[in-house]
């Protein structure tokens, strides 16, 4: 198809052509960035915690009376939980992924150091935590029974110390870039060092306040947590048994005493907690999808509106071409090519705009740089959109009878 006549016609309709180009450029810029924002949200939603979430449920118990032997009660609770059919293991931890509480403490490398090297999230739990959550131990070993202290007593006595610590890989990498963490001492709680005895592949913080890079900076400290300051974590053998196990677990805990409170709302699967936790991100992603659809619809409507005006205006010219022997297909292709040309110019400008917009967002909202592959996605989408939008008016143009050439407009 000859481009020259198209170009010369366009140059005589600068306003309309410029408006279409501008429209496409603007929507290209916004669509690329919105797609990128959606991808960012989806990536967050899919981020692994390191736990085998399909197999884990949690339940909490509280007591009304102040009991002195909370630790003994806790051990009885755990035995009852492990006795439930379908339960593989159980433990209690001060915090869990997607939980409400996040305990952080500072880490120092030497006893004399003032200030902290980094701040880590503390999972205080016994030797069953790794198995219950399904964490992957990549170096060293698990806690032994005698390393696990009575955390409740430590707190009442005001002397909290843990002889051993297991690091998440991200924490180990930050504290010991040389990769020689095992066997080293760290100062996390109190004046005595905690020895690094193991490293797990991944263990996410309960929540992700702070930068994305710090999401996995956590440690496990060996302590028997009294039931009143933690939540039970239960590993089921088969994910389909989770609801049944949760119901049985609540019954088992209630049976431990008349003053027990077991909050049904705190009996949940880890999976449902993940769902709830990322609700906002999902809502944001859907909102962005709605914005993109609205943008594309608006752009398409604009193209339809302008193109039909222009077909109507040129119906005489089209009629003359038809009278001189142009086929319907040629007329149709003429308008489609014209739209393709306009879209291409628009997309080229739109890519520059997209990049500029991303630069602005990077500065204001600390977003990452727009990866280049979003640009062709946006370009293809807008080319398609343009072709679809112009099809109707172009078909109407093709239907103009040659006789129009002889008539007055």
């Amino acid at each position: 198809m000859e481009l020259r006549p198209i170009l010369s016609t366009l140059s005589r309709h600068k306003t309309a052509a410029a408006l279409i180009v501008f429209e496409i450029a603007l929507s290209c810029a916004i669509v690329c960035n919105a797609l990128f924002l959606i991808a960012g949200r989806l990536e967050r939603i899919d981020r692994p915690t390191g736990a085998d979430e399909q197999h884990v449920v949690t339940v909490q118990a509280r007591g009304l009376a102040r009991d002195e032997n909370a630790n003994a009660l806790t051990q009885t609770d755990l035995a009852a939980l492990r006795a439930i059919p379908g339960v593989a293991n159980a433990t209690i931890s001060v915090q869990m992924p997607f939980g409400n509480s996040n305990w952080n403490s500072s880490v120092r490398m030497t006893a004399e150091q003032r200030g902290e090297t980094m701040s880590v999230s503390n999972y205080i739990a016994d030797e069953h935590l790794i198995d219950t959550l399904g964490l992957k131990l990549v170096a060293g070993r698990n806690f032994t029974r005698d390393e696990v202290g009575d955390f409740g007593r430590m707190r009442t006595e005001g002397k909290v110390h843990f002889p051993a610590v297991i690091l998440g890989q991200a924490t180990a990498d930050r504290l010991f870039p040389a990769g020689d963490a095992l066997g080293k001492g760290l100062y996390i709680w109190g004046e005595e060092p905690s020895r690094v005895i193991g490293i797990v592949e991944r263990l996410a913080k309960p929540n992700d306040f702070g930068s994305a890079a710090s999401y996995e900076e956590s440690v496990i400290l060996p302590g028997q947590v009294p039931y009143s300051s933690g939540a039970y974590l239960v590993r089921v053998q088969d994910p389909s048994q989770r609801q049944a196990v949760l119901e049985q677990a609540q019954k088992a805990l209630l049976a431990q005493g008349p003053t027990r409170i077991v909050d049904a709302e705190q009996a949940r699967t880890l999976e449902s907690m993940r769902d709830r936790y990322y609700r906002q991100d999902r809502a944001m992603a859907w909102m962005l999808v709605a914005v993109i659809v609205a943008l594309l619809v608006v752009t398409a409507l604009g193209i339809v509106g302008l193109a039909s005006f222009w077909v109507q205006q040129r119906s005489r010219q089209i009629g003359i071409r038809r009278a001189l022997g142009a086929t319907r297909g040629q007329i149709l292709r003429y308008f489609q090519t014209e739209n393709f040309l306009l879209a291409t110019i628009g997309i080229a400008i739109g890519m520059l705009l997209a990049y500029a917009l991303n630069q602005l967002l990077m500065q204001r909202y600390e977003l990452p740089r727009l990866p280049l592959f979003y640009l062709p996605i946006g370009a293809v989408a807008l080319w398609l959109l343009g072709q679809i939008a112009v099809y109707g008016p172009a078909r109407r143009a093709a239907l103009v009878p040659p006789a129009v050439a002889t008539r007055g407009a």
Partner: protein
Amino acid sequence: MAARYAVELGLRGLLRHPRTMVLTVVLLGLGLAAVMSMLTLLAMLSADPLPGISGRLHLAWVDSRAAPTSASAAEPDADAPPFLWKLADAQALMALQPAVRQAALVSTPVTVQPDDADTSNTATAVLALGPMPSMFGVPLQRGRYWTAAEEQDRVPVAVIGDATARALFGEADAVGRDLRIGSTMFRVIGVVGPWAPRPRFHFLQAGQAVWSERSESLFVPLHAALDAGVAPVATRDCDGRGVGGFGFDTIDLDACRWLALWAELPDAATRDAYADALAGYARSRHAAGVFERPAASRLDSVPAWLAANRVVPDTVRLYLWLAVGLLALCMVNVAGLLAARFLRRGSELGVRRVLGAPRRSVLLQCLVEAVAAGTLGGVLAWPLTLFGLWVIRLQDHGYTDLARFEPGLFALLLALAIGTGLLVGLVPALRAARIEPVLQIKSP
């Protein structure tokens, strides 16, 4: 007379080619509604948390932190300013400025038990130095606030929220009853109505829901609470090598910063005087070698404090930008549609020009049509905005229930719509007014 004719023509032009007109109005309505929904939400989120009160309140801060070490190069306070005080420093500054009403406070969960029962209840409490409830406008229903003398003498008294009072004591009047907090019985001296500034600007804690509807329902003088063995569990910032971990139930009161200090400064003069006293305090402590870092202090108004903490979520601003983008796109579209409408009527406009109508009149006719379209778009945007706000409220972000339409904003919406119509119609109208009459008559 001629102007009236042009206006009439413009309005009549509105009814021609109804399809493109409907499209124009819908597009304008859509773009305006998106922007209005987001502006409404943003306006709600930026509203004064305690109208009439927070204008006088100022948050004071001095840098009492230990000297930085090489290991702590990445300071945790990069994005939000530290605001916490050590107990001794807060007391010293408050004593230095006896004429100014001040309150140092910490927000913490505590367990409370009524005098007769063995049930217990967890309440979030404000432990405060100074007349915190009256300074912050906590609405007193019955009884009274605590007095300076009671605070001085460390008398265990408490002011409790109405809902908590009912949960603990039933329908009986709670004033005069006793309440166990920690190891001590506290006398209830006042019952207050719901008090929940949103955002919770008075004690912003890292990682806490700033927009939560729940707030403190128990107010206790700080020293009485400390005497009863209550250890504040809240954001804190500790020096030295002691245990300073978050959520730990003991607190090294001297080595940690854990109080927010607010001063009531009604005018610029008192504000300046207080800022000077604050800076002077920081300098003297630094000179005495107690504050290791160079003397630094700041006095933030409530809006400045909220801005520094980026209390309005970034996502809302992002949405607003997207909505503005959508509106811009709609405007380009509408400009295109209007241009098509006007140019299509080229010969007609040409006839008018030949018959002696000045350019001005043609311009007016086109602008009237554009503005009328804008107005219709604004009217349509109203229900669309209500719909948008409803969608926003459906989502649970902690603050989204604040998204409500305000009649005042409707005026802004209409003005915006008319302005948009004018802006968008101007280029096509100018284009139409430039039409050469002779050419239009000549062409068939």
